């Protein structure tokens, strides 16, 4: 699947370069959450970046990006886009289940619908033609495997996000990743994906455990708090920290060869761009793009970090 995706995206890109001439005017509507925290800020940035790029490449293509703070206003935004006359809708729902009907209505009118990241309980082809998402279990598994391979006897503390399903998927993935190794999990506590809370939790871990080898914080924002807490305690036993998502600050640390942050695991907000590119390819070049695309939770290392670094992004 992942090879297929990369291949398809590349092919789509190459194909769209040459054949944008002599076609009808097409419009893609993009509906995404408003930037209310780091990751969604990244989504907005990448949606606008890719929209601009697509319109430059295809003179006949118009891309409208709309942001909405909550499900109710997003349902209105989808309706407005539909009234403006779109040929395809790319949507990253603030909350998928309340928006299912609004999305289905667009689909019922024969428009192409691409759904990104957050799936409703009933995620089949009656709702969307294309589904692009990151891989939460793999985000945990990749981190777990890296720890098991790099430091096979490590004693690990985990800082979780909020008690919601994707957090649990990441935890289960992590346990699968370290399964069969001698890696020992000392503790898991919630840090609410917040820098301040992660700072507190890490301070308490440092009080509680005289020796910690690795911290898995599974989120780049929380790594900021963890690093400060370790620096304050002047503890030298912690070998490294693994975050997740791919914020520019952490990718930069990886690229610079920071010893405390040797790797990061991707859960890229740029996935909205993947969906937009594929939608444009299907719309303009008539290549088949329907299906489900689960992006890899790629391990970002010093060697490939440059490829994921967006210095202008707010995230």
């Amino acid at each position: 699947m992942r090879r297929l995706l990369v291949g398809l995206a590349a092919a789509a890109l190459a194909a769209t370069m040459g054949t944008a001439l002599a076609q009808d005017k097409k419009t893609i509507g993009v509906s995404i959450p408003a930037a209310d925290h780091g990751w969604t800020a990244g989504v907005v940035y990448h949606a606008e970046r890719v929209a601009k790029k697509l319109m430059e490449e295809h003179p006949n293509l118009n891309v409208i990006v709309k942001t909405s703070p909550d499900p109710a206003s997003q349902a209105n935004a989808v309706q407005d886009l539909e009234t403006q006359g779109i040929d395809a809708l790319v949507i990253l729902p603030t909350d998928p289940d309340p928006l299912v009907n609004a999305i289905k209505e667009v689909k019922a009118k024969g428009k192409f619908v691409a759904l990104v990241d957050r799936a409703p309980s009933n995620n089949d082809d009656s709702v969307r033609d294309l589904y692009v998402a990151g891989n939460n279990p793999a985000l945990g598994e990749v981190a777990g495997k890296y720890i098991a391979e790099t430091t096979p006897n490590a004693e690990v503390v985990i800082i979780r996000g909020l008690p919601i399903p994707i957090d649990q998927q990441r935890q289960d993935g992590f346990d699968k990743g370290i399964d069969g190794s001698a890696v020992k999990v000392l503790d898991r506590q919630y840090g609410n994906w917040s820098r301040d809370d992660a700072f507190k939790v890490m301070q308490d871990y440092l009080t509680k455990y005289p020796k910690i080898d690795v911290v898995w914080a599974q989120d780049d924002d929380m790594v900021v708090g963890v690093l400060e807490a370790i620096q304050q305690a002047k503890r030298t036993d912690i070998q490294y920290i693994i975050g997740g998502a791919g914020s520019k600050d952490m990718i930069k640390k990886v690229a610079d060869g920071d010893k405390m942050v040797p790797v990061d695991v991707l859960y890229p907000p740029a996935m909205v761009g993947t969906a937009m590119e594929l939608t444009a390819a299907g719309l303009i070049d008539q290549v088949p793009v329907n299906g489900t695309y689960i992006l890899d939770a790629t391990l970002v290392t010093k060697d490939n970090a440059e490829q994921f670094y967006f210095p202008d992004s707010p995230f």
Partner: protein
Amino acid sequence: MTDTTTTKAPSRSFWRDVDLRAVAPFVALFLLLVLGSFAHDNFLTTNNLLNVMTRSAYIAIIAVGATFVISAGGLDLSVGAMVAFVASLAIMFMNAGSIASPLGMVLAAMAVMVLIGMACGLANGLITTIGKIEPFIATLGMMGVYRGLTTWLSQGGAITLRNADVQATYRPIYFESLFGIPYPVYAIFVTGAIAAFVLYRTSFGRHVIAVGSNEDVARYSGISVERVRTLTYVIQGLCVAIACLIYIPRLSSTTATTGMMWELQAITAVVVGGTALRGGVGRIWGTICGAFILEIVGNVMLLSNVISEYLLGAIQGAIIIIAMLVQRWLVRKS
């Protein structure tokens, strides 16, 4: 605060004259410390206790301001968002780098924070008093305004202090100590001492309590209720600014979610500390004690191995309720 008198039967009247309502939070704090010592061997280490006191500084200082607002019969729900707003503006000011020397830059930023904080407080105060809007709604609205402006300033992401020299100059304010005590702990007690002086020893302080206990009586006695109430919001803004002064050096950045729910923590600290939500009573040291209690509850939970991480919220809530029940019980006994 705990007055004793010398009478013929000292042992009995000592207990009768101690204001148990004022002592109760300290009893709860003591019980919590005992409980904590069972949770983990490292709980009662100086290092852990200083960590906890240091990080409770934000809530403690904000709650000192809230004690003024609440004892004058008001309420301020906007403080958490105000922290994010004031701190974000200060970081952007420092990033603009208009002053060459890092120390000058930090001092200027501190002045900027104090001014913006007081201006925000003044805005809240004028809306509730001149605008005659219920404080709950007025400050809920302002909470949205401050939070929204912060989100807009940060474009949803983070605002980070870029200049490494300024960062190095500012960082010690949170992380360094004087005589083994971190600076934020001094900040708590100095703020508390000044606040206690203002509330208990000045005519303004007595006016605050008078306005909170009975607005009409206060008005008939010639107190300008609007002026007193507005000033309590300005004090709240000033306290938020002081909290920002020590918030920025910790992580050197703010996000759109900075200070989320801090208003509720501050109000909880005030109430746990023995100040009545209906106004008319203000206990500065109780409030600071309440902030310590809140932070220690979280610390004890995390250090203990017996409690599932899924139950933390429930146990935290239960401990706060128990602390309040202990208070009520002590008061009834007196």
